[in-house]
């Protein structure tokens, strides 16, 4: 096992990794920017090194500074956490060149998965279902009709050069296709100076479902089931849970087997997450793979009983999966995570500042991952996640009730947080019965707005 590890991150994930190291007898080195001098990851690490000024670009994202710190502290591994340098293949390469073990997949794999189209094709080759679409640019209405027929309606036309909704059309049947095709092409031409279009299957109300995997360095891959992450606001996840109500044991097993085959072929290593969209019929389509530990990893830990961060270290140290996970993975009960962000709960503006009151909920089935504390400061330089509140219950109903009680006991003052927003979501009938998709929050806010207007 490693003797000494540098944690190239901050906040709750840095503390999460430090905790795992402490429990494994690994010495820890924190790095910090000047804004984080009084952070708990600095306090609880065995050593701490200031590597730069507050701006991430000059500190946590500054590869020479991070590597230099690793060298003077004489560590044998670096854990990148999530975000920051975690999916930076160059950083992983510098680690390798510096003879420091990077806790994650090798740079080649990270690079492959970082190029979305290549990743898609690798997955497709391994029979992982991907979102159907045209291959390359569509030249004519006739070709468009043919692609649409193959893909199946509804489809979406997108501008190859595009973005922001321009040159984009949802087409629901063959009749409306020709007009929409021409309109989209004109719009794309006007907007981007390029009228090229391509086509994809359109999912009206997709769910975001992802699978956690672990892969050792001996060619073995295991799937640890899925997480349901559809409760998002502008592609930022707010609530995650495991298992998903939509995934049957049979689906779980099939996807697990496919992923195992596919990732063993690719030569994947360490922890990773395979993200899917699920359509209204419960069919899954691969979108991308994240080659790092994820924010929402605790819900998987609670239902599987596997400590994912410890597993990352053991894998990186060369252990085999069969030594790390000695009994078959079984999903036990139901876990839900709420991301507690330092944000205004209505306006979503970041809310940096000093925390005056910080009362954590506890008791049966409640886990809190945080690096914040009473009198602590939320600096304005980094992301707004200040705590993860995670609950575990025998079933979803108990987990939901437990989360509601825990949210009510989580008292934060001095800054705004998303706690009141979570409380409103948990009171929502659609959420409670699990009837949601990635558009849920839009509808939720719309309903709230209507309700406010009707009471005025």
């Amino acid at each position, binding site marked *: 096992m490693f003797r000494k590890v540098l944690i190239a991150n901050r906040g709750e994930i840095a503390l999460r990794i430090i905790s795992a190291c402490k429990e494994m007898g690994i010495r820890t080195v924190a790095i910090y920017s000047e804004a984080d001098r009084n952070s*708990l990851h600095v*306090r609880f690490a065995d050593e701490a*090194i*200031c590597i730069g000024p507050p701006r991430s670009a000059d500190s946590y994202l500054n590869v020479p*500074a991070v*590597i230099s710190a690793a*060298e*003077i502290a004489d560590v044998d591994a670096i854990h990148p956490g999530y975000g920051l340098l975690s999916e930076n293949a160059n950083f992983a390469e510098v680690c390798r060149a510096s003879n420091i073990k990077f806790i994650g997949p090798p740079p080649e794999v990270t690079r492959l998965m970082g190029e979305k189209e290549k990743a898609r094709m690798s997955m497709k080759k391994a029979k992982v279902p991907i979102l159907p679409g045209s291959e390359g640019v569509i030249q004519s209405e006739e070709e468009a009709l043919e692609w649409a027929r193959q893909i199946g309606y509804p489809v979406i036309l997108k501008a190859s050069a595009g973005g922001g909704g321009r040159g984009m059309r949802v087409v629901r049947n063959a009749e409306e296709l020709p007009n929409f095709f021409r309109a989209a092409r004109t719009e794309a031409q006007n907007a981007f100076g390029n009228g090229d279009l391509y086509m994809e299957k359109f999912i009206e109300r997709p769910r975001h479902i992802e699978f956690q995997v672990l892969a050792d360095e001996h060619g073995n891959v295991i799937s640890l089931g899925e997480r349901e992450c559809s409760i998002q606001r502008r592609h930022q996840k707010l609530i995650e849970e495991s298992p998903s109500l939509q995934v049957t044991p049979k689906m779980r097993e099939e996807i697990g087997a496919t992923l195992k085959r596919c990732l063993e072929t690719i030569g994947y290593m360490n922890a990773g997450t395979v993200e899917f969209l699920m359509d209204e019929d419960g069919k899954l389509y691969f979108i991308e793979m994240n080659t790092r530990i994820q924010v929402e990893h605790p819900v998987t830990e609670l239902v599987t009983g596997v400590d994912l961060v410890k597993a990352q270290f053991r894998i990186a140290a060369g252990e085999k999966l069969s030594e790390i996970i000695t009994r078959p993975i079984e999903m036990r009960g139901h876990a839900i995570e709420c991301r507690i962000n330092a944000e205004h709960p209505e306006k979503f503006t970041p809310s940096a500042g000093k925390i005056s009151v910080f009362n954590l909920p506890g008791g049966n089935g409640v886990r809190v991952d945080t690096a914040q504390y009473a009198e602590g400061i939320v600096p304005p330089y980094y992301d707004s996640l200040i705590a993860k509140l995670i609950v575990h219950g025998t079933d979803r109903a108990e987990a939901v009730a437990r989360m509601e009680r825990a949210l009510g006991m989580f008292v934060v003052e001095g800054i705004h947080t998303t706690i009141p927003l979570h409380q409103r979501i948990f009171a929502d009938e659609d959420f409670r019965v699990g009837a949601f998709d990635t558009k849920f929050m839009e509808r939720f806010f719309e309903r709230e707005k209507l309700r406010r207007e009707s009471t005025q």
Partner: protein
Amino acid sequence: MNAGQLQSLKDLIEFLKQQEVGEFELEQDGLKVHLSFAGHDRPAGNVNLGHLSHLLQPAPAAAAVAAPAHLPSVAAGSSAMESPSAVAEDGLHIIKSPIVGTFYEASAPGAEPYIKVGDQVESGQVVCIVEAMKLMNEIESDVAGEVVKRMVASGQPVEYGQPLFAIRRR
């Protein structure tokens, strides 16, 4: 305490206030004075934290850094130093390390140090090397003056912002 002593003490306190000192302690012979100004936050623990050499020592769990709540709240927003170098309380200019790495006083083992205590330095003059990732980064003085003190030993690791030299400006 006689009138003369009292006057000296008052003088000193006025001076401390003027200098925006937060906390002050003095012990001399039989006399012991401790003072902190209103509004000043609490013992400055960050000095300890700032010194890598301290942190690289294994600290016993119990002694591990004062509780966070007791540490001065570095107002995150205003904490960023304009430049890693700054003026110390006693009027000396401190050259701080602009990067994390290993400090060397000379360009090569056995070579003459770039500067020694007592030397005059010019602004822009190389004062030492901080090695990071096998790169020898020459650190230049940002003021002109006399070298009063060297704060780290050659070969010692330094973190970002760590004081290297004290310079009396001229």
